């Protein structure tokens, strides 16, 4: 595509995947710069996948230190206090990831995601956030959208055995194979704020129950000033009360948000490692599709629940975006 060829070393290492997505997609990957925030199990899975795939660079943001919870689903951190004492999660993950693929530059950025300005974000092609409040998600998504350069925004979260991915590629042009031909396609995405503002009653009847349940939890944490995941079974009555209010407000039948689902989501907020692997895999695939501009990308939510085993795509966009 731009005349630059893959090196011998790259061709040997990436042989099996070049057979899947082609040499030009591999070249685009090697020029992509990705920012991730929230180094828990799901993001660790995602980082592994894209570092192996051979992106250009990966920047990690997470100044928290190791806790038992942080270790629970994260295979990037060696279980050795001598190794992890005094280091942030981002630094520890960085050390491991560097080792995965010497051809990818992995680094750490210290600081708070919401305090970074547009200039910082403009260094990246893809921004992925996890474990942050919905205010922060909206803020980062808007910062990316304001820039003249198009930056793909993704958020991913795993609670217990449920997970959600959100995708905003703004105006995305890509090619796909249809029978013998390669055709050009275009998709217009909604921002996170636009997507979650879509009135519930106009959504199709079969929209994933997880979508509504996660919005209730999100609103609850925000109203209570909690960090994401800082809920317990003791909060269930208040969460159920909020659910009723929101359903009334949106004229949505309450049966669309089963109490049992909300109970699961508040009683255990730890990531379930198999679900981290699934979400990190799907997200990795999507980011690779987005960068390479090859194949239909996910638009614009993905839900997985280990209870029923379904991995569902939902398109929840405002009218301008659909």
């Amino acid at each position, binding site marked *: 595509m731009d005349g630059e060829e893959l090196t011998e070393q790259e061709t040997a290492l990436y042989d*099996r995947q*070049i057979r899947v997505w*082609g040499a030009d997609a591999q070249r685009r990957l090697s020029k992509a710069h990705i920012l991730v925030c929230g180094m828990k199990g799901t993001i660790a899975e995602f980082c592994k996948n894209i570092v*192996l*795939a051979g992106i250009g660079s990966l920047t990690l943001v997470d100044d928290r230190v190791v806790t038992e919870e942080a270790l629970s689903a994260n295979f*990037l951190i060696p279980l050795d206090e001598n190794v992890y004492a005094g280091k942030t999660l981002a630094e520890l993950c960085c050390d491991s990831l560097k080792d995965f693929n010497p051809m990818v530059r992995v680094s750490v950025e210290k600081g708070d995601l919401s305090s970074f300005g547009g200039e910082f974000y403009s260094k990246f092609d893809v921004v992925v956030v996890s474990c942050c409040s919905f205010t922060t998600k909206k803020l980062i998504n808007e910062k990316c959208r304001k820039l003249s350069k198009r930056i793909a925004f993704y958020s991913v979260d795993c609670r217990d055995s449920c997970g959600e991915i959100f995708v905003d590629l703004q105006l995305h042009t890509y090619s796909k194979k249809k029978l013998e031909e390669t055709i050009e396609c275009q998709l217009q995405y909604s921002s996170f704020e636009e997507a979650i503002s879509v009135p519930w009653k106009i959504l199709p009847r079969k929209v994933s129950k997880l979508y509504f349940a996660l919005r209730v939890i999100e609103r609850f944490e925000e109203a209570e000033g909690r960090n994401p995941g800082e809920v317990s079974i003791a909060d269930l009555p208040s969460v159920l009360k909020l659910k009723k209010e929101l359903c009334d407000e949106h004229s949505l039948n309450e049966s669309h948000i089963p109490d049992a689902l909300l109970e699961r989501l508040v009683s255990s907020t730890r990531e*379930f490692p198999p679900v*981290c692997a699934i979400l990190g895999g*799907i997200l990795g695939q999507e980011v690779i599709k987005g960068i390479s501009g090859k194949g239909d990308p996910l638009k614009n939510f993905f839900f997985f629940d280990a209870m029923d085993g379904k991995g569902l*795509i939902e398109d929840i966009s405002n009218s301008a975006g659909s």
Partner: protein
Amino acid sequence: MASQQQFSAIKGAKVLMVGAGGIGCELLKTLALSGFQDIHIIDMDTIEVSNLNRQFLFRQSHVGLSKARVARDAVLRFRPQISITPYHANVKDSNFNVDFFKQFNVVLNGLDNLDARRHVNRLCLAADVPLVESGTTGFLGQVTVHIKGKTECYECQPKPAPKTYPVCTITSTPTKFVHCIVWAKDLLFAKLFGDKNQENDLNVRSSDASSSSNHVEDVFERRNDEDIEQYGRRVYDHVFGYNIEVALSNEETWKNRNRPKPIYSRDVLDNELTRQNGNMDKNCSTNCPSSVSAMAALGMKNPQDIWGLMENSRIFLEALKLFFSKREEEIGNLTFDKDDQLAVEFVTAAANIRAASFGIPLHSLFEAKGIAGNIVHAVATTNAVIAGLIVIEAIKVLQNDTKNYRMTYCVEHPARKMLLMPVEPFEPNKSCYVCSETPLLLEINTHRAKLRDFVDKIVKATLGMNLPLIMHGSALLYEVGDDLDEAMVANYAANLEKVLSELPSPVTGGTMLTVEDLQQEFSCNINIKHREEFDEEKEPDGMVLSGWAPPPTVEGANKTIDNAGSTSEALPVEAEKSEEIETAPGKKRKLIEVSKNDGTSNAEEIKKNEKLQVLDDDDDDDLVILDGGDLGFSPSKKKCQW
């Protein structure tokens, strides 16, 4: 989800993983993170560079080491307190017997071939241990649960037969690049560098093979004191020039075909040029045989380039020379290996020269390697997703949560909004010859077919037995094992060469044979039906086994996909049509045909169909049923008569 009950089921479980490759690495990691304490892992492979893009437990410095052992060490770094027992061995080894399997609560497969999958399936059935089976190719994947007596076994649904090519297409009338690859790899490479005693069809079509066979044998032997360069050119001229001329002399063959063009080295290369090639030793700085490369010696770098006839000819001669100068001690014992750079170079060049001769488009080394090595497209993300799904099913199995077992398919293009589609497992197929005791029916010419044909084509190739034993009533006709005395070995060897009706205990129409595999603890009965004639095109084996659903034939809905350029960007699944059929009042059954382009790269040859049914019971619990779906098979050849 992570209930106390679940937690104790995980803690107390002893699990066996078979395979520490693409799925295996992901699976071992996810098992360890999920709290599994006692994991055993079998893998016979060592680590290759091309594994490193997805098998994340391995590093460059591990190349050549045991996958099972390195994977264990890597996982212990983040979960040091758990027990992982590695076996650097083949799962088909006799020590992995039914008793070995019985010690586990569940077996998890992350394998890459049909043969081993069938073997593990039988051991799990015999040991009555649940099996969670998996496979991926590109963006596609699947996880299935097999519980004896409750769900179908891995072999209840027939698997697509490996693609085969008639020998005559390979030796005389290639029309596709894959035919040239099979010729270069299975015939020419095997002839020059492999076991000299092996039967080889390389010259099968040179006019009258019987009279000239002595002469022909000599052509491939390097004469005493013969210059390597000269020898290489002699082989070149023989296979690309002389043999083509001989084939052309058979006018009958070319009536409705394009005539190939003989190619001689003098027409492609001038003598000066090739002489100079000999002086590139300095480029092969290391003595490690695996790093010897004709491309490097000739200063060619990009494996994605399509070389012309001249470049291919230079690579051919250079590779041949390097085999004789740098790897002479291996000659006579070599088999083609996709990770052997020099072998891939030789096969690519030979296939391309042959393709040029037959007017078939030439291909790059990268593409040729994919075809020759049956390379399955593989990415880390699909393996990670599949590993997650395996663990979810394994946990259900450990809790005996029968109602919630699911088979799950990971697809590239969503069907009914789903990228991950769970399906209720099927019941065992009552006519499955593996997990039920249904006898099979074999139609065979008992006056012509030898016991050897039966053993090779039915017992080994079709029934997938490893250590077979064949009985007619109480008479033992054939047996394999280490503990046989010489007289028995001689007796069985003699039986192999006898036609069925002339065996000591004659096998004729109406006979029932019992075939057993002592290692798999699997046996089945075969009713013999004598039949005089077989269609050479449709029944090339000269025998037909039935009794459970036969493998799907490669006909009908298949469309031909142009091979050129498709290897690197194949879209494996394309939903092609959707129709609704009524099954029961009020219940609609949707049927979507999915035609699948398998991971192996010669797309037009190795396409198979899958039927995907979506059950819509107007509720949220959509079920999707997908038939077929084994994800690995290999081109091989089959015989046809001239």
